[in-house]
């Protein structure tokens, strides 16, 4: 088979992972395709490989700048030079020159906002698009995890591009969300490949702790005994930074934090250190992990309960990509969910801000208190939607806000119920996605598993670096 050859020659893999072959063959047969493959199983290959067999460029819509950049870099690392990411961070001059040379690229990455710009669409329409890829396609659905209003407009964009062959990719979409994806993208006849959300090599452990102070102690113990490397997720930046201080004070030197408040260059260094095996544990917010291809992450620990099951599954999915035994531990103190209620509120403009923009005609940029980027996008998007539907702006936007907040509350409750339930953890999350559970060894804290399997062997502290600066320089540049 030709695709096996390309897999080996271009990508250097000897065999496909579950779901990849099915998706690729479906696309090569010319069918629009929706694939749900669990996190950590190589979704990008599903559009990268067919690109080499199809005539014309592949357009990939991606929700996050960092995700886009990771994918661009991975392609370039493989030696593929015909890659470009069009994003709002690109300098004005760079963007113009890129648009003029667009036909020379094989992979064009875009944010959904970019697709809304007339001159970008104009440039894209001159191309014969081989494949239109919607990455993280669940973002299109209000029912999905991480709904993004801009994704709603992708259906129209696809149509303007002449309804090219389309691939919708997601790791987490239940039946309802999958229907929504197909409808919003106008995929009438679609091949659906849905693979289990279950990752059998990841043991699931939930530890309910009554005392918040006890939680810090538990964190230190776990990080000390578990096989590394690992990731610890926090709901806030400050908590992640404090945890690193705590761990270092307890002698765990290879710890670093990562969050969206850091300088971009510094964030990249932490990511590289983690990939290169210089770090044992990264304490991070949810900003960390997407797009990072690290095979041997041995544990994912949640210091705070995630906002919903989908987020939880995405995050634990970063463990054990190599198929080796790995563990996910969630630490829960009753009341942890309150933090998420607060975070959810802050994602939307409040009533006063909505009134200023919708009734008093104030530009979103001048609303007080100032809007965050997400809030501004929300206001702009639904302001436009209200106009289009001829509805009173303020009432309409408030109504959407209430609906979305209620949905998030529902998701939070679902997560909390899962934490508090006394049944099998794995069976419960599989049922949420309409799957039949099955028994397996090393399952979860309810079914039991062998904790020794995940413990680190002899703890040998890496010797402190003793290089002086000349040695360091000579190591960077050996020879004469």
């Amino acid at each position: 088979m030709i695709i096996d050859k390309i897999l080996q020659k271009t990508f250097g893999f000897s065999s496909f992972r579950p779901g990849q072959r099915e998706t690729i063959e479906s696309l090569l047969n010319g069918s629009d395709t929706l694939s749900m493959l669990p996190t950590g199983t190589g979704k990008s290959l599903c559009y990268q490989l067919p690109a080499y067999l199809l005539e014309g460029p592949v357009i990939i819509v991606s929700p996050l700048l960092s995700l886009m950049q990771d994918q661009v870099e991975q392609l370039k690392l493989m030696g593929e030079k015909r890659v470009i990411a069009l994003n709002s961070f690109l300098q004005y001059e760079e963007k113009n020159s890129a648009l003029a040379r667009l036909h020379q690229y094989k992979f064009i990455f875009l944010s959904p906002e970019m697709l809304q710009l007339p001159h970008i669409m104009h440039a894209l329409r001159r191309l014969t698009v081989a494949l239109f890829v919607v990455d993280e396609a669940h973002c299109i659905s209000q029912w999905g995890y991480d709904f993004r209003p801009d994704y709603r407009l992708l259906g129209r964009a696809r149509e303007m591009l002449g309804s090219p062959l389309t691939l919708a990719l997601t790791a987490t979409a239940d039946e309802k969300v999958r229907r929504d994806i197909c409808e919003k993208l106008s995929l009438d006849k679609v091949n659906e490949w849905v693979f289990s959300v279950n990752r059998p090599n990841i043991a699931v452990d939930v530890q309910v702790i009554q005392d918040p102070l006890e939680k810090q102690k538990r964190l230190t113990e776990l990080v000390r005994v578990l096989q590394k490397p690992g990731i610890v997720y926090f709901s806030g930046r400050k908590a992640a930074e404090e945890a690193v201080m705590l761990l270092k004070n307890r002698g765990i030197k290879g710890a670093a934090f990562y969050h969206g408040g850091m300088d971009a260059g510094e964030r990249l260094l932490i990511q590289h250190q983690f990939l290169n095996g210089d770090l044992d544990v990264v304490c991070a917010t949810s900003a960390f992990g997407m797009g990072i291809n690290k095979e041997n992450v041995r544990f994912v620990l949640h210091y705070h309960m995630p906002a919903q099951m989908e987020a939880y599954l995405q995050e634990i999915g970063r463990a054990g990509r190599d198929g080796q035994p790995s563990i996910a531990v969630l630490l829960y103190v009753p009341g942890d969910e309150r933090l998420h209620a607060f975070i959810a509120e802050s994602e939307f403009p409040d009533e006063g801000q909505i009134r200023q923009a919708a009734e008093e005609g104030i530009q979103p940029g001048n609303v007080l208190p100032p809007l965050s980027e997400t809030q501004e996008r929300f206001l702009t998007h639904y302001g436009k939607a209200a106009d289009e539907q001829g509805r009173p702006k303020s009432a309409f936007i408030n109504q959407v806000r209430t609906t979305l907040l209620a949905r998030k509350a529902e998701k939070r409750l679902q997560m909390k119920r899962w934490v508090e339930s006394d049944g099998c953890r794995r069976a419960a999350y599989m049922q949420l996605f309409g799957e039949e559970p099955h028994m397996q060894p090393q399952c979860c804290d309810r079914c039991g598993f062998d904790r020794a399997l995940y413990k680190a062997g002899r703890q040998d502290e890496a010797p402190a670096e003793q290089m002086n600066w000349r040695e360091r320089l000579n190591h960077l540049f050996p020879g004469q």
Partner: protein
Amino acid sequence: MRCLEAVIVNMLKEVEGGRSASSVFHLLKGKKSAQTIQDAHLYKLSKWFQTAPFLTMDTFDQIIGQLLEAGCLTGERQRLFVTDKGLGEMEASFDRTGNFSFLSGWRLAGTAPVFFSRLQLAVQVVSHFAYSDRTYYPVTRDEQVQHWVKQFFKQNSIEKKAMPGQLRRELAYVLEKQPEHPDCLLLRFSGHGQTGRTVEQAAEMLQMEATEYWFRFLNSLHAVIGLLMHGKEPLPFLRQVLSGITVSIPLTDSARKTADYLQKGLTVEQIAAARRLKRATIEDHIVELALNDPHFSIRPFIDEEKEKAVVKAGGTSAVRQLKPLKDQLPDHSYFEIRLVLAKESR
């Protein structure tokens, strides 16, 4: 007192009685306003200009609050005075760290980050080349820096095989000449088998408080750049890394804003309305863009035939007077003529 506080107290002392605390904040952030630029020179604080870009108004306010509470400052935030205690602690801090005499914020704040970014990437590329290792992720995602480094290696006169040795010798030379511990710079580089450290990590390895490390790092970097600019030593590799750093296309902020609106697909009228500016002002911006940006297309504003007509009427000749051209081209607006002239002259 941390190093950052010592720097702030030192600056407050200079503006004492004349300026508020926020002028110090704007100086450290490098605000490009007439007032801040004037302050930098008037109070001889230009070396600190834009040396703490990481600072936020919130953290600055907190620091001022703590300094007031500790009795290092006195008075109102609008009119602060440094106490003897404040002076004493500041001096103790500078005794420990030195007074960063190579810092040159006003002259180098725009250049230094670009130079360092280029150097980080160049070091990474050469180090991996030395080990024949082709698989690594670039240490910066700044596309302009990536583009520059790519061109640099394409056009360089130094033979590729000689590069690792050359770069090592040049770096060793400047690291010995600059005033700080060489690791202040060296720890920040990624190469084969080593990943660069963040500010925080480098500070920890050198057993320094983080803001002290930051100012030492900057002092060292500015010293190296000074050496490359003014020294006589042959340092061809590093001098090339420093050469031709322009802080992007020189556009006025206002023209840049207009460019953003054009990108969003707004018409001249819409932009004028949105920005509450005259149409003529927006047209000035568009001419400025046409003049400075080699990729700027003037087509939305003038069609091909009309453009050709201007060129034919002498738009390429050395004479750049509008009036005679306009007389020849009664159907063209002045804006259209200026656009073509701008494009032809770039």
